[in-house]
Structure formats: structure tokens, C-alpha cells
């Protein structure tokens, strides 16, 4: 993962160990530390609203990293991501409501349920590819959401399931600041898991499957097993995000898990840039903040009051336009823009990268 050329200057790997390191240079260490410091001080200077935004971004980032593993790296398209989030949220909700289960039980339980459902979502991928796979995950999304709705109506929670704030030991997680650190930790862990998976044997197998299944099979990669593994890992991460979402909102209801949510997650990885974890995070930030940016922009229109009831419609329209613009004009996503800017400075005063043969 960390082997992208070119480095700015002066750093050459002199042993294989160095190639395995996630962080190679002192500059990168400094940057990381500064970034962590910024993340750590943010909740103490931010307003409550900004904290809420940050928490939403973390939640979305876990989901989009998981989808990126599945779609961006293993090449298995899923349009049923909202179904998995729903599955995690309902697992947490049902366990809490029926058995009064604690936070440290419901989260692993959500992961297990997610893994099982991921296995089911993944089974069609053994026979189907591309479009047909996307359609089958779409169908499964509807079925999972239907089951959730059925539970709500049959048990008499037709408006939704309320969940109390979780408790770890003596610590009650209700304050936004605590939530911020909890969600940050979960997002960081899922990022680390993904980084390590991707530079291991599994990640390379996924990349091979995405490039060419037949050749991957010929190279001795167990294609069905690795496809299912991608679905299982991605789904269980997503389900954990769903359970956290349920706790964070304090409320679970099927209305939150519409097809539009699945589309939003797909949009995150497209807008961010396929095949890049940084892209997944950038996409999550962009898509989460977009509605608020729209609201802000609509405020500047003449007689803004009259549009207040139509914000949802504005959101839909703007979201569609942004997604189309990225698909048509910037298929590489935000990461593509970022790399172009980076290369501009790295290569200055030249414009183009040297051709493949002349690389050091």
C-alpha cells in the first residue's frame, strides 16, 4: 500500500522490512502526529453541532471503508449496503429491547450477524458477476429491511425502537465528546484492519480477483472462498457501524434504511475514488457534509424561507448532480484530484510523469 512512487526525495528502501512499514519517513511520522493532535483537540474547541457532524463522518467512514474493501478492492458490487447497516442496527436494537444486553455484547453480536448476512449476500456472487450481482444485493436489501419492519410491527414498536445510551464499565456514553472519541476509535480500528488486510495475502488475492477471475483461479487463489471472505469482512464491519449508528441516534426504525442510503454509500466510494482507502474517507466526509452545505447555500437564495420545506428535494437534486458530475468528468474521484495536485508539485517544473520504462 505504501509503495507508491515517487517519493518526494531522498528516501530509498534498503531492506524488505522497510517495504512492509505503514509509515516510512520521519516526515510522515510528524504529519501523523500533527493530524492525531488535531483530531484530539478538535472536540474541545468545536461546537456541539460540529461534533455531531464529526461523529456522523466517522460512522459513514466505517461503512464506506467496508464497502470500499468489497467493491473497490475485491471488485464485488453491492447495492445492498443499507440492508447491512439495518441488520447491525436491528441486532443492537432487538438485543437491547428483548434481553437488555449491554454494549459489549451487542456490538460483537452485530458483527456476527453481519458476517452471517454477508455470507448470504455473498452466495450469489459465486454464480453471478457485475450487474446481476448488484441486482441480487439490491433484492436482499429489500428483504432485510422488510424483516426489520415486520419485527417492528409484530412487536408493536411501529414507530421505532428506543435504545438507551450505552455504558462501558462506569462510563456512560452520552456526551457528544465521549461519543466523538468512541467513534473515532472504531473508525481508526477499521481503517487499521483494512490497511493490514490489504497488504496481506488476502488483499492481494482480492486485487487478483478484481482484475481477472480466471487468472486468479489459475494462480491458485481460492476464488469462491476469497469472495465470500470479502463479503463477510465487509458486512460485519458495516453491521458494527449500523449498531453504533443505532446507539448514537438512540433510535432504530426501518425508515432510516431506504435504498437511498445504499446509493449514498455507493456514491461515497465513487466520489472518493475507487480502490483507495483515503478515497473512502474523503467520500464519507463529502457525502455526509453535502446536505449541510446545501442547506447553507439555499440560505443565500432570495426568499430562502419559502424553500425551507423543500430542503430534502434540494438535497436529492444536488446529490444526483454531484454524482453524475463525478461519474462523467472525474471517474477517479476526489483521490484522483488529490493525486493530480500532488503530482503537480512533485514533478514541477515538469508536467508529465516519466514513462514506465525510465522509472528508477
Amino acid at each position: 500500500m505504501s509503495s507508491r512512487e515517487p517519493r518526494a526525495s531522498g528516501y530509498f528502501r534498503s531492506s524488505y522490512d522497510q517495504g512492509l512499514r505503514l509509515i516510512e519517513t520521519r516526515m510522515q511520522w510528524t504529519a501523523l502526529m500533527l493530524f492525531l493532535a488535531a483530531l484530539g483537540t478538535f472536540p474541545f474547541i468545536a461546537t456541539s453541532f460540529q461534533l455531531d457532524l464529526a461523529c456522523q463522518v466517522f460512522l459513514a467512514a466505517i461503512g464506506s471503508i467496508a464497502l470500499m474493501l468489497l467493491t473497490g478492492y475485491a471488485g464485488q458490487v453491492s447495492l445492498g449496503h443499507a440492508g447491512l447497516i439495518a441488520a447491525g442496527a436491528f441486532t443492537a436494537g432487538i438485543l437491547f429491547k428483548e434481553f437488555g444486553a449491554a454494549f459489549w455484547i451487542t456490538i460483537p453480536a452485530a458483527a456476527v450477524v453481519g458476517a452471517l448476512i454477508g455470507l448470504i449476500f455473498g452466495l450469489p456472487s459465486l454464480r453471478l458477476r457485475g450487474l446481476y450481482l448488484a441486482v441480487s444485493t439490491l433484492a436482499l436489501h429489500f428483504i432485510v429491511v422488510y424483516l426489520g419492519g415486520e419485527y417492528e410491527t409484530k412487536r408493536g414498536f411501529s414507530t421505532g425502537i428506543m435504545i438507551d445510551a450505552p455504558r462501558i464499565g462506569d462510563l456512560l456514553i452520552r456526551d457528544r465528546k465521549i461519543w466523538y472519541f468512541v467513534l473515532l476509535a472504531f473508525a481508526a480500528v477499521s481503517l487499521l484492519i483494512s490497511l493490514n488486510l490489504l497488504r496481506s495475502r488476502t488483499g492481494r488475492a482480492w486485487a487478483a480477483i478484481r482484475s481477472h477471475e480466471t487468472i486468479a483461479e489459475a494462480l491458485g487463489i481460492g476464488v469462491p472462498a476469497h469472495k465470500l471472505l470479502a463479503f463477510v469482512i465487509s458486512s460485519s464491519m458495516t453491521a458494527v457501524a449500523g449498531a453504533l449508528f443505532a446507539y448514537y441516534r438512540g433510535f432504530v426504525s426501518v425508515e432510516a434504511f431506504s435504498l437511498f442510503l445504499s446509493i449514498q454509500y455507493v456514491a461515497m466510494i465513487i466520489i472518493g475514488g475507487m480502490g483507495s482507502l483515503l478515497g473512502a474517507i474523503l467520500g464519507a466526509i463529502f457525502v455526509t457534509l453535502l446536505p449541510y452545505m446545501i442547506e447553507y447555500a439555499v440560505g443565500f437564495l432570495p426568499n430562502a424561507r419559502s424553500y425551507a420545506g423543500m430542503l430534502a428535494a434540494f438535497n436529492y437534486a444536488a446529490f444526483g448532480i454531484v454524482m453524475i458530475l463525478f461519474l462523467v468528468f472525474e471517474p477517479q474521484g476526489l483521490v484522483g484530484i488529490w493525486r493530480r495536485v500532488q503530482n503537480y508539485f512533485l514533478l514541477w517544473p515538469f508536467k508529465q510523469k516519466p514513462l514506465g520504462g525510465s522509472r528508477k
Partner: protein
Amino acid sequence: MQLAINIAVLAAIYALIACGYVLIYRVSRVLNLAHGELMMLSAYLLLTTASLFSKNPLIAIAAAIFLSLCVGVLVYLFLMRRMTGEMVLAAVLTTVALGVLLRGLVVLVWSAQQQNPAQALGWVNYSIPVFGGRISAAGAALIITTALVYAGLFLFLRFSRYGIRMRAAGQNPLLAAQRGISLHAIYALAWGLSTLTGALAGILISLDSGLDSTMVLIGLKAFPAALVGGLDSLVGALIGSLIIAAAEVLMIYYVDALLSDVVPFLVLILMLVVRPWGLFGTREELDRV
């Protein structure tokens, strides 16, 4: 008997929508997931034309249908044309994005309230007694329209010059282009026709049961019908619609009304597991493992 009539009407709805999916898929291998939204847009266009031509309901409907045809062609020319030759999935996601955009625009222009185009046209939806059951006038119109549309499409694809070109482009775009068939024109035609049939469906459904954003879901539920029959087969779409409609109506009648939105997708998954290319679809062209 009433059950059979309900099944027939629902099957007609699904078949009329499904042929839109089939047309585009067969010609350009793109799955148009914005079909439901385009259909809804046509129904809303009828609202506008109904207020423009309030004297002549038939002219209003004709104008709405013509406008929808133009919308379909424009969607191809300005959006989907850029996606030809890209990954199929990118094209499909573009249609998804288009759908989201249309959903927002429709609410911005026409508001989110439930509308009633039949009222705007000054029509009353009579119910007609047939064979010991009852069918609404719009429902009967739906069945007749579907029959006419399918007959027309069969004749068009089999005998007309452009129909044959469409089939050629669907079978092998490269060879078709080398024989002097303008692919862009053919694709644009397919999009136009598909939106036109979608418009017929959208308009008739809105005349039957009013109009709001739930129409998108009807459009999406017609998609399993197209896939069960085989995505590139018109006969398949007809039979698939019958199967899905029968399953849905019987399920609502005998088991649980809440199931109605899920049944088509259950059938879809069953079909994908057993026979992914559908009942009448071509097998070898399918992107299977």
C-alpha cells in the same frame, strides 16, 4: 374472478414498465435503474399539459407522451452517450444518479403532495363489471395499452428497418457500426421508446390511483419481472410480469399484505439462484462466472 382481474391488471402494469428495461438492455446492455423515476416524470408532465390543454384531455395526454419521448432522447444525448464504452457498472450508476436527481426535481417543480391527474383532466375513473368481477376504466385501458404496445414492439422489431437495426446493434455493436448503422441514433431511439412506454405506464397508473413518489417503487418492482423473463427478451418480460403479478396478488390475498413489496424481490433472488439468465434470456451473452 376478481383475483384473476387484479392479477391481469397488475401484470399489465409490470409488463408495460418491464418492456422499457428490456428495450434499453437489449440494445445497449445498460440497465436503466432510473426507469421508475422517468415514468414518474412523465406522469407529472401530464399534470402540466393537463392544465395547458384543459379543454382537450386527449391532446394533453398525447403532448405528455411526446414530451416523454423527447426526455428519453435528451437523456441519452446529454448523459448516457458519454457513458457508452465505459464500464457497464459506471453507466448503471449514472442512471441511479439520474434517478436521484429526477426525484428531487419532481418535488421541487410539482411539490410532494399526492396529485390526481384524472381530476385535472376532468375524468372519472368508472368501474366496469366484467365476468362477475369489477375492473376500473384505467385498469382496462392499461391491459389494452399493454397488448397494443407489445404487438407494436414485436412488429417494429421484426419488420421495420429501424427495428432490425436495433436488433443488430444489440447483437453485435461493432459489426452493426461497420455496416453503417449509426449506433448513437439507435441508442437514442431505444431510450426514447423506452421512456415512451414508461410514460404510458406512468400516465395510466396515475390516472388509476393518483400520483406521488411511491410510483418509483412500482417501477423498481417491475424490474424483477423483466429479469425473471430474461433481460433481453420481450416475450420473457410478458411472462415474467404474469409470474410476478400472480405471486404478489396471491401472497397479499392469502398470506400478508405487508409482503407485497418484497415478493417480487424474493422471486428475483430465486430466479438468480436457479437460472440467472431468466426464462427466455440468451445464456451465452450473460456475464456469468
